[in-house]
């Protein structure tokens, strides 16, 4: 019924990320007798090939963000493996983990919480260059300006604080910061859902342009199938911590096999909805 793991045939040599049987359980707060277990992830397996975009779709609470955080190494899974470019990140020492982290970078949902309000946005973009000691300080300055240019921001913005930028501009800064260390994989967790629709389109287009130009693979986490159809090569549908369906975009969008996917598809708003009698 469901197609877990490999939706399309992928040769191991081309594989960038493989998540195998990942599980993570959280406990709700409160007194011990009232605590409940929440399965954020239950035996989740996905793969991402080099240069490819995997869309992860699911409603809020389906475990999408936990999956992203596990891949980034920010949350420790209870069981399962995250294998990046042939290395299991759980077994890595600090130095090797740091070199993997440099190649896997996040873009966050909330453009207001993802930049330190006291840091100039240039400093935020520069952060990874400094901590991974990429190039000389002068190189880093130049690279920051290049990155601003790359994401369609005036390099003069580098000296500004996030407070003076719009949501869309901040998200561009967030993308520039993610690109700074030249990653192979970007984990984008709802990168456009906090933005206006018109700005959403701009940021999505920027995202796709950058992927085409730089060949970065990405895991694009969203609740919005309409968005994911736009950017993804493949889709994994997450429902209550379980991957219920994976496959190529066309396959999942045109011939969904799981009921939940059909429900999600039905929820996509149509361009010109018919007026409903209640209104």
């Amino acid at each position, binding site marked *: 019924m469901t197609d877990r793991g490999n939706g399309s045939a992928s040769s191991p040599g081309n594989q960038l990320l493989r998540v195998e049987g990942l599980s993570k359980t959280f406990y709700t707060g409160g007194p011990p007798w009232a605590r409940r277990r929440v399965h954020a992830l239950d035996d989740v397996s996905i793969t991402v090939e080099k240069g490819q975009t995997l869309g992860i779709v699911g409603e809020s609470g389906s475990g999408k963000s936990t999956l992203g*955080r596990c891949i*980034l*190494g*920010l949350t420790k899974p209870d069981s399962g493996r995250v294998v990046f470019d042939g290395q299991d990140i759980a077994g890595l020492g600090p130095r090797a983990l*740091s070199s993997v*982290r*440099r190649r*896997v*970078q*996040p873009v*966050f*949902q*909330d453009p207001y*919480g*993802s*930049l*330190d*309000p*006291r*840091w100039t946005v240039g400093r*935020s973009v520069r*952060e*990874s260059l400094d*901590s*991974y000691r990429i190039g000389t300080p002068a190189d880093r300055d130049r690279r920051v300006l290049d990155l601003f240019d790359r994401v369609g921001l005036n390099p003069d913005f580098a000296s500004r604080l996030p407070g003076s930028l719009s949501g869309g501009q901040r998200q561009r800064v*967030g993308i520039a*910061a993610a690109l*700074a*260390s030249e990653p192979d994989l970007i984990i984008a967790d709802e990168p456009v859902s906090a933005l206006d629709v018109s700005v959403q389109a701009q940021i999505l287009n920027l995202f796709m342009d950058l992927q085409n130009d730089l060949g970065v693979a990405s895991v694009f986490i969203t609740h919005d199938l309409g968005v994911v159809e736009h950017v993804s090569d493949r889709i994994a549908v997450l429902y209550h911590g379980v991957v219920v369906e994976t496959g190529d975009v066309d396959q999942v969008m045109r011939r969904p096999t799981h009921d939940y996917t059909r429900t999600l598809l039905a929820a996509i708003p149509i361009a010109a909805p018919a007026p409903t009698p209640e209104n």
Partner: protein
Amino acid sequence: MTAQAPLVAATAVSHRPAKRRTSTRLLISGAIVLGVLVLIAIAAPLIAPHDPESVVVDEVLGAPSLAHPFGSDALGRDVLSRVIYGLRTSLAVSISAVLASMIIAVPLGLLAGYFGRWVDTAISRVLDMILVLPAMLLAITFIAILGPGSVVAAIAIAVIYLPILARVMRTSALIVTRNDYVAGARARGSSHFRVLIGHIAPNALGPVIVQASVLAAFALQLEAGLSFLGLGTQPPTPSLGGMLSDGRDVLLQAPWVEIFPGLAIVVAVLCFTLLGEGLRRSFDPEGVAE
């Protein structure tokens, strides 16, 4: 319909700057008066018209005059000079106590809030142990062990406020830690140390500074209380609390011996409180609207 929008916009705009101005005024007035008090305290030897400890038998309980604007006390000592020196002692004890407390509380709260888990549990439980003891009792216990004096009073006050400041810092650090830019900084290769120093501390320190300013007011009162009981600053060194104690015996004959140090305490406490309130509002512009 079109008139609606500008109206809403106008109220929204006019509300906030007015509130902001109040908070700035509080902050500035508190800071200015406190600055003057601190200057007076620092320059005490230059400003004080008389030696605060010199006993002049002729002038016992002298009423305020040109030579002694605040009068003189039961030993004929100049009250103005004693208030100036007393202020010096009280400010020195309260400010240094709060600063010492902060130096220990900030790192503890930072670590507890950022790392959570067992680090938080270990630090928080130890702080709770201090917190359950009544402040005055704790201070008196300290003095019973170490003996009375300004330095011991400062140490006791620092220990009393340590858990309060550390808790504020912990909560603040906990909130800041949840921001995506902290996760982002880790993903961008920053070490825990760099994240703590670069991101968490600067963004979490605001509430602690506010709390410290408010606690300085309480510290001043506590020091005065201890000195009043004879447990803090020891005579003949002038202290505001000690002067209150001296003045109590001659309250009816020579009220100025009591009134002026009392006023000095009120003004100093008020300054710290104003400063704290002003800082709180300026650190928390959202809360001002409420």
